[in-house]
């Protein structure tokens, strides 16, 4: 329990300092920071519609960061979730389009999306586990392969003949998640993510032998190897699972929100997921709260930008500062403890 409070402290401290630093940007550009944060909060939780929109935004981030948490816990830095998400969305869409209307279309499309993301992640996973090639570089470069390739597919061979934009045809209605709350975009995929996937991942990470292996490899690969754990295989599976969840997140966006595959399916959820996995300190419960938090910041910032005439970019800035502050929080906590400013 002590560990839990410590993690919570760290996260809150990082958030508080990041807000303070971001205030400097607001002041520099002549906006009142208090008003800015008020509008961000209002834009995220102001009424029922806004609250559901925050959950709509939080869902892909939750799925991506749950997957990344497993790989980060293994000290495998998968920064390719963005590409894995795109590939999952694309493969899922193709599956849905080729199956047409049927009672199994949705389920099978989701499975294909998961497989797509997992397969895409298996390339850098193989290179890391077998050849020892730094996964940070390969996963990131593969984002560009995936996104450029999909842009090409949607602009030429797979372009829908009915529209002017580079996008796929509309998926069959049996591949679409039903809406749960009328007159909002709150779809079934959100409930599946928070009520099924989240507990499953919690169970996988905290209660299974595999979860233990991941932790052991992350903490000390040499000791894990002595203990009889197949380090390469653990790394491979951890990275592939994170790709699978990113792929799922991608198709959930198609099935729940867009109804078509578009080259703009993700405004960087794969990168936001990195921040959230770190902010949630690889704990699924922490990650759930952190995803809602960052979704609120993203949605609230667009309201705030409109009201205060602020340019875009604040969201990325806050995310960068947040990561640094999470890294620094241990140091700051230790300093505060030494000065006896907080209770031990």
């Amino acid at each position, binding site marked *: 329990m002590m560990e839990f409070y410590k993690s919570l402290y760290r996260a809150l401290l990082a958030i508080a300092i990041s807000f303070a630093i971001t205030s400097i940007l607001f002041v520099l550009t002549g906006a009142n920071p208090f008003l800015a944060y008020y509008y961000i909060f209002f834009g995220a939780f102001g009424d029922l519609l806004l609250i559901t929109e925050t959950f709509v935004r939080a869902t892909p981030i939750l799925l991506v960061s749950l997957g990344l948490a497993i790989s980060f816990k293994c000290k495998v830095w998968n920064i390719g979730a963005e590409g894995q998400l795109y590939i999952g969305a694309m493969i899922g869409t193709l599956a849905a389009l080729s199956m047409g209307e049927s009672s199994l279309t949705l389920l099978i499309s989701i499975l294909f999306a998961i497989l797509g993301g997992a397969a895409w992640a298996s390339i850098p996973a193989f290179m890391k586990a077998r050849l020892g090639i730094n996964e940070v570089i390969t996963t990131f470069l593969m984002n560009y392969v995936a996104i450029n390739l999909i*842009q090409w597919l949607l*602009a030429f061979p797979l372009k829908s003949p009915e529209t002017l934009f580079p996008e796929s045809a509309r998926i069959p209605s049996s591949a679409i998640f039903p809406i749960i709350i009328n007159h909002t975009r709150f779809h079934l995929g959100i409930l599946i993510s928070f009520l099924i996937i989240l507990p499953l991942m919690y169970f996988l990470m905290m209660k299974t032998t595999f979860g233990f292996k991941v932790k052991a490899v992350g903490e000390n690969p040499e000791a894990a190897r002595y203990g009889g754990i197949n380090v390469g295989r653990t790394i491979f599976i951890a990275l592939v699972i994170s790709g699978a969840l990113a792929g799922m997140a991608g198709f959930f966006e198609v099935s729940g929100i867009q109804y078509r595959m578009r080259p703009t399916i993700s405004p960087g959820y794969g990168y936001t997921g990195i921040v959230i996995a770190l902010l949630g300190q690889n704990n699924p419960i922490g990650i759930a709260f952190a995803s809602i938090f960052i979704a609120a910041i993203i949605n609230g910032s667009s309201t705030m930008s409109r009201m205060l005439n602020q340019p875009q970019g604040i969201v990325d800035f806050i995310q960068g500062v947040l*990561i*640094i502050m999470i890294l620094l929080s241990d140091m700051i906590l230790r300093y505060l403890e030494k000065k006896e400013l907080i209770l031990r």
Partner: protein
Amino acid sequence: MIELIIGLLATTMATSTVLILASIGETIVERGGLLNLSIEGTMLIGAFLGFLGAYFTGNLWLGLLMAIIGGIITTLIFGLLVVKLNLNQVISGLAINLLTYGLCLYFFRYTFSQGAMPYLKELIYPLPIPFLSQIPIIGPILFNQTIFVYIALISAPFIYYLLFRTSFGLKLRAIGEDPSIAYRLGINVNKIRYMALILEGILVGMAGGMLCLSMFNVFDVRITGAKGFIAISIVILGRWNPIGALGGAIIFGFTEALSLWVGTLIIGPLSASMSQLLSTLPYSVAIIALLIGGRRAKGPAGLGSPFLKE
């Protein structure tokens, strides 16, 4: 036909130069045991400040100076996080990439909130070298280029000399193998690492500046397009050697030039399609090259690990 191929190779030199400068900069820092992923953000800051400087002063060279200063500041911030505070190098690098992306997007939109897309009225033009540029074939490819190309070509042997023939290079490589042993031998680990980071800042800032000042006359936050990460792959493929990095960078520059070239060569609806498909080429080539050539790559032994003074 021969003119088209000369054109392709001349473009290759220009597109390679960004990668040559960046991968040589990264080679220096990685030889000192630091894995700097923030090179992408460093390049972006170089491009942004280069553009702003040139736009507001009307002087391209002042823009270049701003780009270099911006590059140095960004690598020094990375240094503060990983050398002084000993934070995780991978995550700190990623954090700086996000941070610089946000800052550039925010201040670009803030500065140019109204009106048309800002652009630079002129670019840094090629500086033909007398006599040499008259040589057929080689002249237009190598000696009718911008100053950046010459700097990049000269910096490879220069940095090679610095790394392998000077006491600075010897100390830096000792730190890269094992910082604690280097420290016990009386080497000022942090000072040498900061010096390496400053060199990287100059080179990468210049690479970013080149994007806005001699290749495109506009700024966009996506202008660097993972070139920093391609440069990091080049460092591995070039086996942490500036001459190897030079060779690798030219191969990648060629793939990029090829997609630009095809776009202008083929006319009609096929052109856009081919050009877009070929834009994945540098990234796919990087992955395949790492798959084949990254296997036995052995970098400095202490690369990426933290250094704690006892």
